[in-house]
């Protein structure tokens, strides 16, 4: 164990980096880029320290600090990582330098752009490491603002509408969560505290639990997003600039799933158990609906956005299915989806920079002029649709396996979703990169530049690595996953009726 | 008891009626006169409550001094000369002269008799009743200068604010256009009323 508070440094380094960026004159775009890249790379390197020092065999929170913050209200600054948040932190720090690379073409108003991007990183990291509900909420909402500005300023034509929708959807959910947090705070029998680990034991009646669970669930379900609440996502994804889409898909959506795992289930296990069928139904609907709608999209970014809905459905399914395979698979899938969808957005962003259109029909035959781009795209698409040997397969297989153990028949629609994924991704690939060249501009598309290769290579390596050898990842996930599964399955004296009923069919 | 109710009823009608009439009157002088009627009606209300001193003050200060000031201001600002010439009530002027003469005679008489008028006879009795120990003036003084000392003093601040406010507004009114000159008088009204 190192004495160095790696975790806190990693969280706040990007924020400190904004000061550095602030010092650079706004005309020196090159220096701004390099500065942002340097800050994010250093953050990533330091976050490797977290990975090194992480103790594999335990489900406890590690490497954190705990300092009193506002003792009058029982608020402390408490951080820590476990197997779930570790990978989320790593994913964020890993993707951030790549997002900066993907933003190389941002010339307009580059200074505030990089400042907001770095602020966003601190907000996201903060959410993953907070173990105090107040602190968590602060980061949770604070990460909204930079994302809102990123979409709204540097997005495409409909950006203002998309940014507004994104902000308001999320805000309504979060405010309901805030009420639930406060309710929980005042229900705690001991001296008032927002400390997550202490609040875990709060005795609550089932009715109260149900209400509070729904309060938290409202917030997380919007973020995930689960189906009736998903409409902000296609807009936000489509209109956001490339780096924004990458961070949205790869990290922001995971906040929802992470919140379910970290807060909604452990704090209100009885209510969660009772509502398993509901959540699973929503997840399945998300899988099938997202995939089906993705097939008919004409806009490439919208297609990827809908594919995210389907993938996130898988993750929620795994989390709520109540078996260790499902839970670990879900968590691993969070990582996988971040990598592959992030890469898809980067690749398409690169393509967009060359052709300035998002319509699939405007492309065709791109592979002839940009073979490397096409190859990489295919590779990532295969990972996303779950080809064995690549990362997506591991996660989705584990989720299906876990589901099969507990709710046999639910596997059918879920597996159907995978087939649909193959259809929309491969079909889109075919239409963009092969087929007849309808537009001469497609003939002159330059292939991947070295910067873009550098940006994509680490992701490709990881995709292959997780696909072949996921053990180091699963080893760290499993203890924590097991803990949550136990909470979901038999945490209290309540009869197993709810689970038993769901088991019966 | 019943006479109280009857007086109250009349007072009620008069006060309310003249207040409403004040709102609809078009002539500034009429407005001021209706206000006088309202104030006198309120004085009657105070009398009904046995607050003789306040009733008198109400008439002397509000119906008397302040309203006369109002009328002066209105006159100075200039009532239309044509209005002064036509006379809706025939014989108004001679009547006014006659009443004024009567008032002057009354004042002269009182001045001639001097303090005898109130220190002897029924007047003396009434005055003594008024000044009997828990009487009006003393009771009021006791309350105002002891328990309600602070509110009493705060009122003076309130008046200072009102005066300063009038000064500011008057200066600004003259700084702008003649359009707002009309509302100038109403602003003065409001400060006085406060």
């Amino acid at each position, binding site marked *: 164990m190192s004495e160095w508070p790696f975790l806190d440094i990693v969280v706040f380094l990007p924020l400190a980096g904004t000061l550095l960026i602030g010092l650079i004159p706004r005309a020196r775009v090159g220096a701004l880029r390099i500065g942002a890249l340097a800050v994010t790379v250093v953050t990533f390197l330091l976050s490797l320290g977290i990975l090194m020092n992480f103790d594999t065999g335990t489900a406890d929170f590690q490497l954190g600090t705990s300092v009193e*913050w*506002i*003792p009058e*209200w029982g608020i402390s600054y408490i951080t820590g990582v476990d197997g779930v948040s570790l990978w989320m932190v790593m994913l964020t720090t890993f993707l951030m330098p790549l997002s900066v690379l993907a933003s190389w073409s941002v010339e307009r*108003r580059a200074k505030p752009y990089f400042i907001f991007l770095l602020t966003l990183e601190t907000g996201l990291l903060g959410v993953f490491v907070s173990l105090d509900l107040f602190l968590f*909420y*602060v*980061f949770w*909402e*604070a990460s*909204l*603002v930079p994302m809102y*500005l990123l979409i*709204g300023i540097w997005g495409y034509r409909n950006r*203002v509408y998309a*940014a*507004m929708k994104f902000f*308001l959807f999320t*805000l*309504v959910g979060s*405010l*309901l969560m*805030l*009420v639930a947090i*406060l*309710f929980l705070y*005042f229900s705690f029998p001991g001296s008032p505290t927002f400390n997550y680990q202490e609040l875990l034991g709060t005795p609550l009646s089932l009715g109260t639990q149900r209400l509070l669970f729904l309060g938290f669930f409202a917030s997380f379900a919007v973020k995930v997003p689960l189906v009736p609440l998903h409409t902000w996502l296609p807009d936000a994804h489509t209109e956001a600039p490339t780096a924004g889409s990458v961070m949205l898909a790869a990290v922001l959506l995971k906040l929802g799933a992470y919140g379910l795992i970290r807060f909604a289930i452990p704090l209100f296990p009885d209510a969660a158990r009772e509502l398993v069928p509901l959540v699973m139904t929503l997840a399945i609907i998300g899988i099938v609906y997202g995939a089906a709608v993705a097939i008919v999209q004409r806009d490439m970014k919208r297609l990827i956005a809908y594919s995210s809905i389907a993938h996130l459905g898988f993750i929620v399914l795994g989390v709520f299915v109540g078996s260790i395979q499902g839970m670990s698979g879900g968590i691993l899938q969070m990582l996988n989806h971040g990598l592959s969808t992030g890469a898809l957005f980067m690749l398409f962003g690169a393509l967009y920079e060359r052709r300035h259109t998002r319509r699939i029909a405007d492309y065709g035959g791109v592979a002839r002029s940009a073979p490397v781009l096409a190859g990489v795209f295919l590779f990532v698409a295969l990972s996303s649709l779950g080809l064995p040997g690549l990362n997506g397969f591991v996660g989705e297989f584990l989720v299906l396996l876990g589901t099969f153990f507990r709710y046999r028949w639910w596997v059918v629609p879920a597996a159907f979703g995978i087939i649909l994924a193959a259809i929309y991704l491969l079909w889109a690939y075919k239409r963009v990169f092969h087929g007849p060249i309808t537009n001469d501009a497609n003939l002159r598309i330059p292939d991947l530049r070295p910067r873009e290769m550098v940006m994509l290579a680490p992701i490709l390596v990881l995709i292959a690595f997780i696909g072949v050898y996921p053990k180091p990842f699963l080893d760290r996930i499993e203890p924590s996953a097991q803990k949550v599964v136990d909470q979901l399955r038999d945490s209290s004296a309540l009869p197993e009726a709810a689970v038993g009923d769901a088991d019966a069919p | 008891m019943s006479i109280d109710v009857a007086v109250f009823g009349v007072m009620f009608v008069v006060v309310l009626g003249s207040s409403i009439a004040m709102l609809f009157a078009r002539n500034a002088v009429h407005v001021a006169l209706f206000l006088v009627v309202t104030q006198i009606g309120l004085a009657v209300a105070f009398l009904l409550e046995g607050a003789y001193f306040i009733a008198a003050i109400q008439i002397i200060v509000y119906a008397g001094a302040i309203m006369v000031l109002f009328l002066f201001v209105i006159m100075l600002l200039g009532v239309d000369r044509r209005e002064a010439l036509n006379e809706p009530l025939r014989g108004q002027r001679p009547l006014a002269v006659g009443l004024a003469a009567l008032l002057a005679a009354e004042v002269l008489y009182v001045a001639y008799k001097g303090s005898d008028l109130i220190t002897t006879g029924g007047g003396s009795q009434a005055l003594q009743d008024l000044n009997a*120990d828990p009487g009006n003036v003393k009771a009021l*003084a006791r309350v105002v*200068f*002891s*328990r*309600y*000392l*602070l*509110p009493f003093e*705060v*009122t003076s*601040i*309130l008046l*200072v*604010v*009102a005066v*300063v*406010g009038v*000064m*500011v*507004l008057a200066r*600004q*009114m003259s*700084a*702008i*256009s003649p*359009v707002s000159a009309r*509302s100038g008088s*109403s*602003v003065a009204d*409001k*400060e006085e009323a*406060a």
Partner: protein
Amino acid sequence: MPLDIPAVRLTGIAPEIALCATALLLLVIDAVLGERRNRWYLPALASIGLGLSIYFATEAWGTTRLELSGMVAVDGFASFVKITLAVFGLLTVWLGRDFLVRERAEEGEFYGLVLFAVAGMMLMAGAADLIVVFLALETFSLALYVLVGFRRRSLLSQESSMKYFLLGSFSTAFFLLGIAFVYGAVGSTNLYGGEDGPGIVSSFMATGASDVGLLILAMGLLIVGLGFKVAAVPFHMWTPDAYQGAPSPVTGFMAAGSKIAGFAALLRLLDVTLYPLREDWRPLVIGVAVLTMVVGSVLAVVQEDVKRLLAYSSIAHAGFVFTGLIAANDRGVSGSLFYLATYGITVLGAFAVVAVLSGRDDEKVTLRDYRGLFYDRPLLAGALTLFLLSLAGVPVTSGFVAKLVVFGAAIQEGYWWLAVVGMVTSAIAAFFYLKVLVVMYMQEKETEDAERVRSGPLSTGVIGLAALATIVLGLYWGPLIDVAERATLFFAGG
């Protein structure tokens, strides 16, 4: 027979006296020295007066008693509000100085009226008798009516002053009627009662709780009068017009000051004096609170003028403070105080930015004038963003904490549904704050300014201070909430 003159101790109203004396001195000095080009001594003197009042208010901290025959309460609550008001006053004086210099309309009366207004508001905070509440209300209202009309060459300003005055006197009439009814119902107007005479509640209890109907009616009338001052729906009609017409620094002062003064009186009246009758007044106040939150938030969405927008936002905020008032517990009262203090600073900061940007004659205040502001003047836009986010209740700002504490208090008291209403309306409200952000960040400037208005040094200072306070109180708010909590422990008699 001799009068028994009561013991006159002035510690209770020392801050007010300091302010009034300074104001008079200031008016005299201005009259004596006449029209000079640079009358720097006026704001300096005003600042000294406000500083003195802060000193006196701090001196009174920790004592809990009634003074001047039970007319004023000297307690932590009053001290807290008075100090807050003095700070608002300081910010207003500094902002006003820059504004007046820019408009070439510097007049001693401006500072004098601000000081008188602050004095009236302070008296409101300490008032322990409805008569004093009424006089304090009148004093600061009168000063505000005039201040609203302080924009020369602007008919809009005169008009809004007139409107504000008319509606204001209407509401004061309600308040006065309420006092009369209270007196009729229980035979006392004192909030606490003591050796000098019985209080409202003790008299009420003595009469055998028979006339509760009349008392509730009276309470309703009092709430109308005070609700007007804090801009609660349905007594809010004046707010948008007065906010729009008033000079921007005055608007900020009005938003910050009359809100805290009005709520101070409401808190003392409802949460202390009438606490035993809380089940009777709660339905009424809950109705007002819900209406206020909903109407304020919804109507703000369609505004195009920044000052009107902030006016509706101020209405919505009154509704949020009401939730703390309704909770009526320690956290509710201290939370409301915290809310009002932080809201005041934030809103003053916001109006400071508006004042700087509005240009000569204070006229560039529509959303159109804010297009692309961030790229033109990043620091001002950044500060305004911070204030707006604070008003919207986004974390890391004081506005978030304020919402947290008042909604927390409501939840603690079992009114979680009220908190849900508050949250939903906050989300609606967020929409229009975001609208301003959209304009500032996501739209392009249309035309270049002919003349670029500079932010005066004092305005810059005020904006900086307000921004700093908004952030610091959002991150490290423990000490202030602690002070607010201790302030409510020292409620005289309660």
